[in-house]
């Protein structure tokens, strides 16, 4: 086994420049969207990878890449895959970085071991296994990086989608957009209550124009938020109830009797102004 890896390693270190050229040629030919990453960057990553692979093969005895010896290679592949994931490459494009080195290597192996087919086939089998492992590893890292991106976006969406705005002195508005689930209700509740403390608001208008459907669970979450606000001493008004939603609420038997409900945010705002003792009037010269 050590003999064979020595062979592969020799080829990599002896023909490094040639390998790099044919690897680059392969890479750029399979790469559909050339605009995302410059060829120079490819070349830089590839020329960093090759010598590292040679030194690692020198120390290693098998095609298993999860050992300590391979940690440098894994590090390099980590960086490459993660940056590809961020730049929006497809998994195939990412894995091709590794796989397109295969055929140039096979070519040189074939030339070097032309006289012993037995050795050649063994060497090719070994190289193949090794590169499959490396390729699978890049895919795994790529996948993890994508999952991280999705998680971060979910978190950002959660924070972005729950703004609490101050409409007037002592009047807050909470325009809800999208479906309310438990996690979001928690965030909505926390930000609303904190804003009540910060502004000393007496009335909060919860506008559900942007909530596509109201089922029993969503209604329960709404009622929870209203109860919590009431415990803090602020009244809530639900506004933006569409006709279908009003029908659904009654059909489901949800009890909104104790809550002030209005069809539009404007109506709710008028009630809020009355409650806080403010009035708005048109100036005469404009009418």
């Amino acid at each position, binding site marked *: 086994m050590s003999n064979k890896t020595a062979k592969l390693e020799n080829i990599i270190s002896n023909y490094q420049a040639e390998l790099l050229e044919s690897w680059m040629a392969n890479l750029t030919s399979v790469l559909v969207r050339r605009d995302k990453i410059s060829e120079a960057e490819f070349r830089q990553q590839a020329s960093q990878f090759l010598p590292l692979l040679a030194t690692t093969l020198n120390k290693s005895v098998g095609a298993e890449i999860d050992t300590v010896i391979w940690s440098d290679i894994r590090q390099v592949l980590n960086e490459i895959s993660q940056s590809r994931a961020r730049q929006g490459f497809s998994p195939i494009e990412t894995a091709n970085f590794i796989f397109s080195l295969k055929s140039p290597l096979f070519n040189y192996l074939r030339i070097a071991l032309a006289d012993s087919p037995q050795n050649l086939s063994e060497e090719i089998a070994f190289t193949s296994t090794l590169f499959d492992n490396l390729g699978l590893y890049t895919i795994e890292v790529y996948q993890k990086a994508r999952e991280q991106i999705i998680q971060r976006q979910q978190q950002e969406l959660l924070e972005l989608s729950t703004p609490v705005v101050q409409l007037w002195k002592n009047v807050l508005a909470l325009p809800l957009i999208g479906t309310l689930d438990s996690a979001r209700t928690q965030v909505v509740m926390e930000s609303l209550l904190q804003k009540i403390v910060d502004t000393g*608001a007496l009335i909060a208008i919860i506008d559900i124009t942007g909530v596509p459907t109201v089922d029993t669970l969503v209604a329960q979450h709404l009622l929870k938020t209203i109860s919590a606000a009431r415990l803090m001493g602020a009244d809530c008004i639900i506004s933006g109830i569409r006709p279908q939603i009003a029908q659904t609420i009654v059909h489901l038997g949800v009890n909104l009797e104790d809550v002030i409900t209005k069809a539009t945010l404007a109506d709710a705002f008028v009630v809020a102004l009355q409650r806080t003792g403010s009035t708005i009037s048109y100036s005469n010269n404009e009418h």
Partner: protein
Amino acid sequence: MERIPILRMGQLLLVTIQVDMHDRLAMTLQDDLTTRIVSDRATGVLIDISALDIVDSFIGRMISNTAAMAKILDAKTVLVGMQPAVAITLVELGLTLEGVSTALNVELGIKLLERGHL
């Protein structure tokens, strides 16, 4: 013996709870408060819990009971200064303290009592 002080502000009584409640303390408070409502002819009671980070079902029930007692003696009770985290916990526990008026702080609580329509 440990007691919770009851301060008088005109026609109103102010109770600030700052220590952990237990049975004895709650009984003493309810005793003291009902006595003071009668002797001071108070029309309103403010219970300030802004110093409490934790309100469990026991304190929740104690507050409801106290409010009910005050109501029988014709005094209105306003619970003031609840922390956001406490409000969320109480709602999750299903304790919405029906029948108890609430306000954000003592000042707003006094306004609420003075306006009289609870």
